[in-house]
């Protein structure tokens, strides 16, 4: 992999140079939080921004979009409307989240809507410092080696820039003069030290060891009822989770004409209608069952299938659920370390 150096003060210049690669998006303050937004003024780009409300998935699978338009002459693909974008400021956990979505959407029966957007979205990662809700170390997603085009690591006055794709390489070449090929021993030392220091910054106390087994043992535990009683079935946890990929498909039709669109929107297994089938039978009528599905899917089933959880430790469920149901409280409760649900 190609690795280069970029002076932090040249960041703006560099982003300007690569503007031809697509619209620039980066985390911008929204209320007390951050959200990836289109950047009109480069001064708004903040490489130290914290976790965004929605993860990168919003770029690849927008919350709502039309798959195709139809009329009496047939279908009209809407893929052409996908724009080229450069997303700056992705954290390692989020890029790991994308890698999980890649598995779902880009393998067997690939989803053209995902793939088109994934292709047209350049990802520039940046290294981050964990806050009290991050636990990506526990999920082994605190670093990332693929899935991005460029990755900027902290190096004092510089960034260490990892080139992860051919598009990434093109971007670097478009701003060639700003990059420095020479990485000194001192730089490497600095990088290692920073990484070590970062390791010490994880504050959240969570232990996911043997989670699949614990789930198997606790699957009929009363605690699920308690969690179900508390859950508002608001779907927020799924919406913000970088790896939740469920969607619903609905049709619209124009007034009195044979034309309309077939649309997709994010859905969630925490919602009432998720497993409802015709005739009124609901395979997961109780919130307890739906909560069980959410957590077993993240922390048990996925590990069984892929050897790692489908939780990337981003902490979003912790900072989003209004009633404090999240990976931390559920894991701790199941382990019997602390009882959150009474």
């Amino acid at each position, binding site marked *: 992999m190609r690795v280069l150096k970029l002076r932090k003060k040249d960041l703006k210049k560099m982003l300007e140079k690569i503007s031809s690669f697509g619209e620039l998006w980066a985390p911008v303050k929204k209320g007390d939080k951050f959200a990836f937004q289109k950047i009109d003024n480069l001064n708004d780009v903040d490489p130290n921004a914290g976790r965004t409300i929605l993860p990168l998935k919003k770029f690849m699978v927008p919350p709502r979009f039309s*798959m*195709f338009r*139809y009329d009496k002459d*047939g*279908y009209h*693909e809407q893929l052409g409307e996908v724009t080229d974008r450069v997303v700056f400021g992705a954290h390692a956990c989020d890029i790991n989240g994308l890698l999980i979505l890649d598995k*779902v*959407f880009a393998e*067997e*029966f*690939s*989803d*053209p*809507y995902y793939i088109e957007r994934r292709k047209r979205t350049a990802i520039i990662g940046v290294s981050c410092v964990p806050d009290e809700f991050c636990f990506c170390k526990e999920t082994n997603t605190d670093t990332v080696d693929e899935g991005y085009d460029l990755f900027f690591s902290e190096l004092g006055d510089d960034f260490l820039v990892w080139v992860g794709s051919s598009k990434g390489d093109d971007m670097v070449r478009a701003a060639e003069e700003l990059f420095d090929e020479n990485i000194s021993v001192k730089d490497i030392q600095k990088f290692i030290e920073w990484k070590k220091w970062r390791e010490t910054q994880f504050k959240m106390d969570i232990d996911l060891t043997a989670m699949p087994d614990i789930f198997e043992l606790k*699957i009929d535990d009363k605690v699920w009822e308690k969690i179900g009683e508390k859950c508002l079935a608001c779907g927020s946890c799924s919406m913000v989770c970088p790896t939740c*990929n*469920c*969607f*619903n*498909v*609905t*049709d*619209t*039709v124009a007034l009195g004409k*044979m034309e*309309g669109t*077939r649309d997709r929107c994010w*859905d969630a*297994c925490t919602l009432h209608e*998720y*497993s*409802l*089938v*015709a*005739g009124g039978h609901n*395979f997961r009528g109780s919130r307890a069952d739906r909560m069980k*599905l959410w957590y*077993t*899917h993240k922390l*048990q*089933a*996925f590990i*069984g*299938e892929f050897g790692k959880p489908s939780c990337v430790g981003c902490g979003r469920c912790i900072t989003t659920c209004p009633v404090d149901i999240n990976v931390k409280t559920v894991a701790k409760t199941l382990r019997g370390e602390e009882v959150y649900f009474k």
Partner: protein
Amino acid sequence: MNEGLCADIKLANDFQPDMMRIVRKYNLTDDVRFFQVRPMEEQKALTLCYNPGQFMMVSRLGVGEAPFSISSTPSRPGLLEFCIREVGQVTQSIFRLNENDSIGVRGPYGNGFPMERLKGRDLVITMGGLGAAPLRSLILYALDNRDDFGEIYLLHGAKKPGEMLFKTEFFDMIERKDVNTMLTVDADDTGKWPAKVGLVTTLFKDIKQIDPANTFAAICGPPVMYKFVIQELLKLKIPKNQILLSLERRMKCGIGKCGHCVVKHIYTCMDGPVFSYWDVINMKELIY
């Protein structure tokens, strides 16, 4: 991906249905209707291939899509058959269609029955209600390739005579010597029912000529049926991994993306809808 009888034809975009023409339709019961469809494009009609037990997503643009089992057999190419029960939005709008109207269809999806493994085996096929939809495909396929299979038992139960799907077809099969067809109704409200009366489970005592270790059983029907039929099959000593069930879940894509049919890490649409009883024992939520 599943090993179909022939390789899947890759569509450019799996979310876009092909337009097909309704060739024939008639009522099977009060609320179940038979639809025979044919792809508009001749080429598609010729190359259509699928496995018994697979399903397709049938669409009415402007209303929505829903999964339906294929009832026809790949051994009689060029046409697809579905039997559809009118229960909600999509099915109601399908019911409003007439012959020669067009309808969107995409697929086939799902694993279907493992036809390679079924070769040379005895078969016990048990169905109830709409369960006849996918199993008819298997039966017709087996009968069209009769030499590939050993003994074939066909057990079909309905609540009342009026609710039995494909009644004439199955009564014709009673006449056939190469298949043991047993039909029963829970109650005969007509007083003219020529076959058996009683629950489908009462038919099992007449299964005599199978070699359990070399038998595959297939079940599809209303959820309550599974438990009791499985007990009977276990009594016959058919191995758990040779008892096959076709299951149902809410589905929005059919191709393992939308998540609705997931049970743990199993996608009912991709890893199923056909599961073995052994799978089910290990996945509590699969049958409820």
